[in-house]
């Protein structure tokens, strides 16, 4: 376990991990009630949603894309699902319809980006707003949709524990592990790195670039729906106003701070977990210190800026990224 090697392979991730450990020790020593089983479980639980979304965003960013529509897809697909359940649609039919729609939305994102060659930033921004508009005006009538009483079984999942660890956390770790496995062990997973590094070269080598990009966005949309279901198991409802919150920026923050550069081709799920842990530690520490919401946003934003600068220094732009731009 040569530390030097580890450092060289993943400089930013290493720095973030060390920083997390330092913060953890500092908080345990100086903050009352930090180092307790309850608080630590709470800490991880408050960031599972962020973590699951960051797994999806991380995969897309590795392929040098970005998916600004995940929050919209998450909120609207879950809201439509709950709305259908409220209208007495059987569970499996509602689930099937929503899954199909989510796959179609992911496919549309992918087709716009891969085949129509619209930059990912604009395409996903537009689809995100479009999905919100269509969903809010045609599919649901209220901002907040509640889980109907006859489906409280979904709700009990939110209270399930395996040992002392809530089910949500196990789900997050499972999704991150699955994604890491897909990226590392599957041929197509490794191709995503190549696509992220140099699209033209990957295409010339014979990699099916466009179908792979489409698949990326389909998986991203599916993970977003799963994240929505995680919200439902705990809050027994979904509030579509989450789209207007800063959740999207928090997800990008986790991805960038963890060490997955926005220029693509670099990083893995370990970085997502480092980023999630660091942000989770910061948020938890700030709330124990009773620092108000407004200052929390300021501090998170400063971390994002520092991470971006660090990323620019440690991973300097090579000539091809310079020519093609980051996203």
């Amino acid at each position, binding site marked *: 376990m040569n530390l030097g090697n580890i450092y060289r392979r993943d400089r930013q991730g290493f720095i973030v991990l060390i920083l997390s450990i330092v913060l953890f020790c500092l908080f345990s020593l100086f903050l009352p009630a930090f180092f307790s089983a309850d608080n630590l479980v*709470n800490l991880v639980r408050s960031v599972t949603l962020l973590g699951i979304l960051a797994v999806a965003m991380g995969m897309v960013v590795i392929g040098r894309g970005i998916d600004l529509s995940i929050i919209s897809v998450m909120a609207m697909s879950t809201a439509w699902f709950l709305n259908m359940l409220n209208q007495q649609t059987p569970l499996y039919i509602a689930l099937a319809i929503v899954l199909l729609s989510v796959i179609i939305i992911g496919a549309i994102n992918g087709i716009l980006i891969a085949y129509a060659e619209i930059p990912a930033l604009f395409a996903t921004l537009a689809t995100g707003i479009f999905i919100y508009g269509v969903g809010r005006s045609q599919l649901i009538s209220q901002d*907040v949709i509640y889980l109907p009483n006859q489906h409280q079984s979904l709700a009990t999942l939110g209270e399930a524990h395996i040992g002392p660890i809530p089910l949500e956390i196990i789900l997050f770790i499972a999704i991150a592990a699955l994604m890491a496995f897909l990226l590392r062990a599957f041929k197509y997973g490794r191709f995503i790195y190549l696509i992220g590094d140099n699209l033209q070269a990957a295409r010339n080598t014979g990699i099916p670039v466009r179908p792979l990009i489409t698949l990326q966005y389909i998986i991203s949309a599916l993970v977003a729906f799963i994240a929505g279901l995680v919200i439902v198991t*705990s*809050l027994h409802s979904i509030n579509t106003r989450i789209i207007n*919150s800063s959740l999207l920026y928090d997800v990008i923050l986790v991805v960038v701070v963890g060490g997955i550069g926005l220029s693509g081709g670099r990083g893995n799920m370990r970085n997502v977990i480092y980023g999630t842990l660091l942000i989770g530690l910061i948020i938890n520490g700030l*709330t124990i210190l009773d620092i108000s919401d407004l200052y929390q946003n300021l501090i998170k934003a400063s971390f994002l800026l520092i991470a971006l600068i660090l990323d620019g220094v440690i991973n300097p732009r090579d000539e091809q990224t310079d020519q093609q731009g980051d996203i």
Partner: protein
Amino acid sequence: MKKWQKAWALGLVLSLWGSVAMGRDDPGPASVDKSFKDKTVILVPMAMGMDLSQGWAHYIGKSLKEAGVNFETRDPNWKPDAGAEAITDAINRKVAAIIVQSPDLQSYSKLYKRAQQAGIYVIQVDNPSNYASDAFVGSNWNTVGQLEAQAVVAGCGANSSRKIGVIQGDQVNASSLDQYAGLEAELKKHPGFEVVAAPYSNWDETTARNVTNTLIQQHPDVCGIVDFWSTTAQGTGAAIRDAGKTGKIYLVSTGGGEQADCDRLNSGLLDALVSTDVPNQSRDVSTLVKYFLQSGTQAGSSKSWLYTPESITKRQDVKPGTCWSLKENAASA
């Protein structure tokens, strides 16, 4: 004449006489017709996508449409700017009256004044503001705060830790500010009880959940929590459940009395609710509109406050009819 012909003739005479006798001059229908014809009333809530606004739109809309008044709604979707535009548009169209839910104490005050100068009646609903317009229909939030405090003190009991948490709305909304004032005033009457933490939820249930989590961590022996809106109480209740303290922390809130509120009471998420009774509140608003349109009073020449009578509803008080239902309203519409 034969007998049946006599009967017919008598009947004919009687009915003619009857119709002449019934033909008195009733000024009512004519006044209503004249005052309501071609008049438009616009509802501008903070957003249409919540139970309160949909309740008002249904009940006020039904009542006014039956009376022959045009009723429209606008949806600012939580943006005060969009609401200001909607009100300005209504002023330019010279509608008869506007019903507005103010997002904070100050933003719309100038618009209310302009509207009244243009001869438009301004009825504020639910949230008061610094400008007293023709009428305010809503809760006396100070009283609501007092009732919530009474409920939480009773729920905690004298042998408890007497520590109370408050999940406030935001720093600018009148309902949040007044509820807090009422709560504090009532707690002074119960020595020993104190508010140990009062974070803001910004009317969002995920934030409510997170701040309640922290609150319970920092004050594990808190005996009761007051949340200033039942929709955010969904998140607060979830946090109490996460900490395993359902039943040990007494949760009190206030809401429009929609079926979701009764569900929360029945499921144990919420322990007591102060209902703002949207159907009767709406009845007050439509009555005022019908009065103003016929009265001929100048807009801005009078001010009235119609406070919704409030009481505390607990789980055992829930009966069929305690809550109104959005679903049933939508089905009957």
